[in-house]
């Protein structure tokens, strides 16, 4: 099967790390998110933002990586935030119940949702 497109970009400034994702986060691309996140976390940021506002699809493998990061943040005491995805992707978060546990923000620089 033809793989879906997936883009990931990481940046770090001061104690702030950010990953911007685009395309399809699925079984094929989830390991890339995992690796990129681990690399950024080596710099021990205070806060990691994963921007999924340009994601067109997510499956359980993608959710699994985000849940893993969420748990690790709780364990290690840093902030983990996810920029709210488009409607059809948000639906997957809602079905899985994770939307009640992850901290969504409206834009990468934004603080807690109003």
């Amino acid at each position, binding site marked *: *099967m*033809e793989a*879906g497109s997936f883009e990931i970009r990481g940046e770090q400034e001061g104690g702030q790390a950010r990953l911007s994702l685009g395309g*399809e986060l699925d079984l094929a691309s989830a390991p890339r998110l995992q690796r990129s996140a681990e690399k950024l976390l080596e710099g021990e940021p205070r806060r990691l933002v994963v921007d999924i506002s340009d994601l067109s*699809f997510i*499956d*359980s*493998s993608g*959710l*699994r990586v985000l*849940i*893993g990061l969420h*748990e690790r943040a709780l364990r290690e005491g840093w902030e983990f935030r996810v920029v709210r995805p488009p409607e*059809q992707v948000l*639906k997957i978060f*809602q*079905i*899985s*119940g*994770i939307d*009640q*546990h992850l901290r969504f923000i409206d834009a990468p620089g934004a603080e807690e949702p109003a």
Partner: protein
Amino acid sequence: MSEPGERGALAREREQVLRELREALSGSEQRLAVTLDALGEAITIRGEGDRLMYANKAALERMGVGSVAELRKADPRALLDPYLITTEDGREIHIEDLPSARLLRGEDAEPLLMRTVHRASGEERWVLLKATPVPGPHGEVDSAVTIIEDLTVEHRAAVRSRFLARAGQLLASSLDYEQTLRNVASLAVPQIADWCSIDLLDEHGGREPVAIAHSDPARLAIAERLREFEGELDPTRGLGRVMATGESQLYGEISDELLVSAASGPEHLELLRAVGIRAVLIVPLRVPGRTVGALTLVQSESSRSFEEEDVAFAEQIATRAALAVENARLYRERSEMAHTLQRSLLPDELPAVPGWEVAALYRPAGENSEVGGDFYDIWPIADDWMVLIGDVTGKGVGAASLTSLARHTAATASEFDPRPARVLARVDAALQRRPPLALCTALCMRLKGDVVTVASAGHPLPLRLSPQGQVSEIGRYGLLLGAEADAQRVEDAVQMRPGESLVVLTDGVTDALGAGRERYGEERLRERLEEICDEPPLVVLQRIIDSLENFQVGPQADDTAILVARYSGAGQEGVAQQEPQTAAVGAADG
């Protein structure tokens, strides 16, 4: 004016010059002959009546003629008689087709590549003929010089490397090794041999004929009839010996006595003679440690024989074929194991649920030999029925063990407390003890008369279909299992009216990929369900699958489980009177 004495002197001088010229010419003729004889290429000159006027040493040797004088006397056709001469594609070549003969007829003549097989010895050669016209005094072609280049080595190498490349592609192309071996056998005829057959050893050490090929399908009938005379493999001779020892056998010369001794009776002997076997080469299909079969090459009507280098070549083909067979068999075994394991994770058949009609289907992902992570189950607790459907992240044995854990924990938990949210909480607790991050979505329902109680753990909610075409979700979302300890899930109870159905499924349905990487999605599913809302569960199931298959592009990427339950409201007595309308369809036999 000249003196007579001068005239005489002039004449003498001319004679002298002519004599010297003759000598010089005859010397050059000899030098030319010596030069031509030293050449490796065979050279002939053909003249009037297609007769050969000259041949150098190499050409004389090739034709088996003692001298040029003998050659000149010979009938040119008779010189070709000992050979079967064909083009590359097997068309027979006659004297008129030779480039030299064409030039003599005033035609153009392209170089000609031909195969000659010496009828008596079976020796095969590939030669390239290039002819040049020699004009006579009046400009017409009165003879033609032919240079005959022996390309046997080059041609065989080219044919073989082509064959190996193509056979390699074929063998790697499919896991259906029987068909692949048949294709390889067909590819071998007639270039490599006149017949090619492949036999495998079955698990009891018996012969399993897989492929037999001949370029002329009519001749295959003989092979079919010969099969009837084949008995047990004899480990001391022929195929049986190759299978037993793992060593190749070359029968360079098949004598009639050999056929007589091999034949089981007159009819068998007649058939063997009809094949016209000239030489047989049997090589083992070997993988490390054992022989899985054998490849047999037979030369018959082409009169070819086999040489030592043919053995090495055939062994090369056989090694590749053996590996392909072994890989395909291993894959098949693994597939069967996966399917067996998968079946153990699904109910053997759905029980008859009083007041309900139930149908369910599990479809593993396409061309996959791993155990998938989808599961469903339905079981009774007192007078109620529990329904569970779920999806474990991942595949393979790890996923299978989580599936098994989830199913059995749910069944046990429901004995103590059949409330769906409680059942899920117990499964959640069991998964929390599994490292690292064992995630699973699940939907648990309890059917109690016409009341359905539902709780979801990260799983798509049940869709309720009314016979009037309304499609609506029941229940509410809850956190998937294994993510966070002590997550709270809420359960909802709804009352079903007779004729209403519940459809529960895994995300393999909605995530299915169509053209342009579009997903099947919930919208499409709902639209489809609206059209089929008053159909019985088995039909609803089939329509969903049809719709998915129409939509889907490429192989099915994920496992899919679907369960449809329709409330008939008939109650206990009703069910007792009718056929159980329950069906488990096609549990994992892709």
